[in-house]
């Protein structure tokens, strides 16, 4: 089910290609990922659980959940949601759960060194890379996706904030503008951009940090070395515990956005949205724009968590929002056939007899995000569990520097927030790295200006959570001497 007409987006599909899945020919368009193309071709079961052999479908769409691992052109455990299709590509179901036979030793190795290494080219990472490069640093920007922009590439709505943060501009436009700035710096020789490349290990170093990365499909391994590193690795979608939560047709809200806004593929025909924060409200509206029906939005909290203006858009387009309601179970054979929603009392307990059967083929979870900070933890940074930040985070100071000197963090990896604040945090981290390198001695004013912008963006009631998170992180930082 491809979207052919869209009020905001134009899907200029690439040329048709054919690949094989389990020996069966599948038609797709150049530029689509394997998992997206399979979805469009009606393949909804991508893998099975190890123990009970339960079907698993497309969930996150950004390489974080592992339900779409397959063998591609002989390479095992490929995250097919991140690998673009190509003519005659051979895609096979995932390997059995044991270490696959695929020795790596004979493959190409490259060593790259830089002044600043940026891991992740989302809004925070690109802004960090641009900021550092503008100060004369040689930057290597690495991202595991086939394109830059992180989650901005699927944000079709106009951004809030002020003019400096490109308010009133759609996320997709901001992504294109940031990408162009980075590409310009790359053309000037100031920046090297590695896409399709995952950074997977931190190996310390004296005065310089060593990290390893791999481009799986090109079979190249990189050893990256830099005195400063910015970790802007984004976040991953939270799961919710209920029977049937692993059925194909239960998606993360971001996964649905990727399918419909990046690849123009409808997740299904009728959606139950779980969560009325900004993500749930915005994605519901975007589903309507893509021509998908939204049955309702359920929210466990007694009030709508997102902005009223987003809720108002949905209500006037006929989508009801049920606060103090949640999903009790999702049912279906090999994929979602419906869901039972239930009202919650003031103690968050299901009210007996309030169950309602919601006809839907898609359940979309918009129940928050968890920072992707695994690399930082492997590096051994001082960390803490900060609920307001979305989970375990690297403790950092006002310049976004962690407990390991020369390593910085920015965006959702430093605590879940908005793309607009991620961009400012990225600038701070990039500037922090430049200062660390001695390239930006007289940038005190710029730093203070970025910091006060961030503070202003967090001042209102909707910034309370981020404010609390950052306060706790700074407290923890001063305790730990970060």
């Amino acid at each position: 089910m491809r979207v052919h007409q869209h009020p905001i987006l134009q899907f200029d599909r690439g040329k048709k290609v054919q690949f094989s899945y389990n020996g069966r020919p599948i038609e797709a368009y150049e530029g689509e990922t394997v998992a997206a193309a399979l979805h469009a071709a009606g393949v909804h079961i991508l893998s099975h659980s190890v123990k009970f052999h339960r079907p698993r479908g497309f969930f996150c769409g950004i390489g974080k959940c592992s339900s779409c691992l397959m063998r591609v052109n002989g390479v095992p455990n490929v995250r097919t949601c991140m690998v673009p299709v190509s003519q005659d590509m051979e895609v096979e179901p995932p390997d059995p759960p044991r270490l696959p036979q695929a020795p790596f030793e004979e493959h190409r190795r490259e060593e790259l060194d830089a002044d600043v290494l940026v891991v992740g080219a989302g809004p925070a990472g690109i802004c960090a890379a641009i900021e550092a490069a503008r100060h004369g640093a040689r930057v290597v920007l690495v991202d595991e996706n086939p394109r830059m922009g992180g989650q901005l590439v699927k944000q079709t709505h106009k951004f809030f904030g002020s003019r400096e943060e490109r308010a009133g501009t759609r996320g997709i436009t901001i992504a294109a503008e940031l990408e162009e700035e980075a590409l310009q710096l790359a053309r000037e020789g100031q920046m090297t951009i590695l896409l399709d490349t995952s950074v997977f290990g931190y190996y310390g170093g004296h005065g310089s940090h060593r990290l390893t990365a791999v481009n799986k499909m090109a079979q190249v391994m990189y050893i990256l070395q830099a005195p400063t590193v910015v970790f802007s690795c984004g976040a991953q979608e939270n799961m919710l515990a209920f029977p049937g939560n692993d059925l194909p047709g239960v998606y993360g809200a971001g996964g649905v956005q990727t399918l419909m806004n990046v690849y123009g593929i409808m997740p299904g025909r009728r959606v139950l949205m779980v969560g009325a924060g900004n993500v749930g409200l915005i994605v519901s509206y975007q589903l309507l724009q893509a021509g998908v029906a939204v049955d309702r939005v359920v929210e466990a909290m007694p009030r709508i968590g997102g902005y009223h203006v987003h809720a108002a858009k949905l209500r006037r387009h006929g989508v009801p929002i049920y606060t103090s309601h949640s999903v009790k179970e999702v049912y279906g054979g090999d994929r979602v056939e419906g869901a039972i929603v239930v009202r919650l009392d003031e103690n968050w307990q299901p009210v007996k007899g309030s169950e309602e059967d919601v006809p839907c083929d898609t359940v979309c979870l918009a129940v928050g995000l968890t920072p992707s900070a695994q690399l930082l933890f492997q590096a051994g940074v001082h960390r803490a569990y900060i609920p307001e930040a979305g989970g375990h985070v690297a403790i950092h100071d006002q310049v976004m520097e962690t407990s390991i000197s020369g390593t910085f963090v920015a965006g959702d990896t430093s605590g879940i927030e908005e793309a607009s604040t991620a961009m400012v945090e990225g600038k701070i981290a990039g500037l922090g790295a430049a200062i660390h390198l001695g390239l930006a001695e007289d940038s005190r004013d710029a730093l203070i200006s970025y910091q006060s912008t961030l503070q202003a963006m967090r001042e209102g009631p909707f910034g309370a959570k981020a404010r609390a998170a950052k306060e706790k992180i700074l407290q923890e930082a001063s305790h730990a001497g970060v």
Partner: protein
Amino acid sequence: MREYEKTGVLSVDHLRLPSEEHLARGVAVIECVQDIPCNPCVDACPVQAISMENINAPPQMDYEACIGCGQCVAVCPGLAIFLVKVDDGRGWVTLPYEMLPVPGQGDQVTLVNREGEEVGRGTVTKVVKRRDTCVVTVEVPPALAMQVRAIRVKP
């Protein structure tokens, strides 16, 4: 907790409404009542009719100063600004429209209120694309001018 935080629907009691004279001229009604960090409407207004104490405060419209140009309607990321005009027994609402199909001038469309209920039929009098957003003006019964906040267009 305010009712709209539960329902997602504002009542007109939450809004500071324009007077009859303002409505006769046609002014922008801003349905943005929460403290959210956003201010493109302030920047977009060519006559500085919209003010904000700080970036988190809700925008305040000076109906005396508003010239009804609709720049703010197109720029608002929350799609929360509507141009309303009631004059000589006729009414018009200008709203941002980000759905398909896009109606044409003269088309009959279904008028919808804040709760998504159909409240009547109206004729589209103007369709423009401004700042990357389609802005549609529809003639409505004058009594519905403060109610109609969306349209439904038959494919």
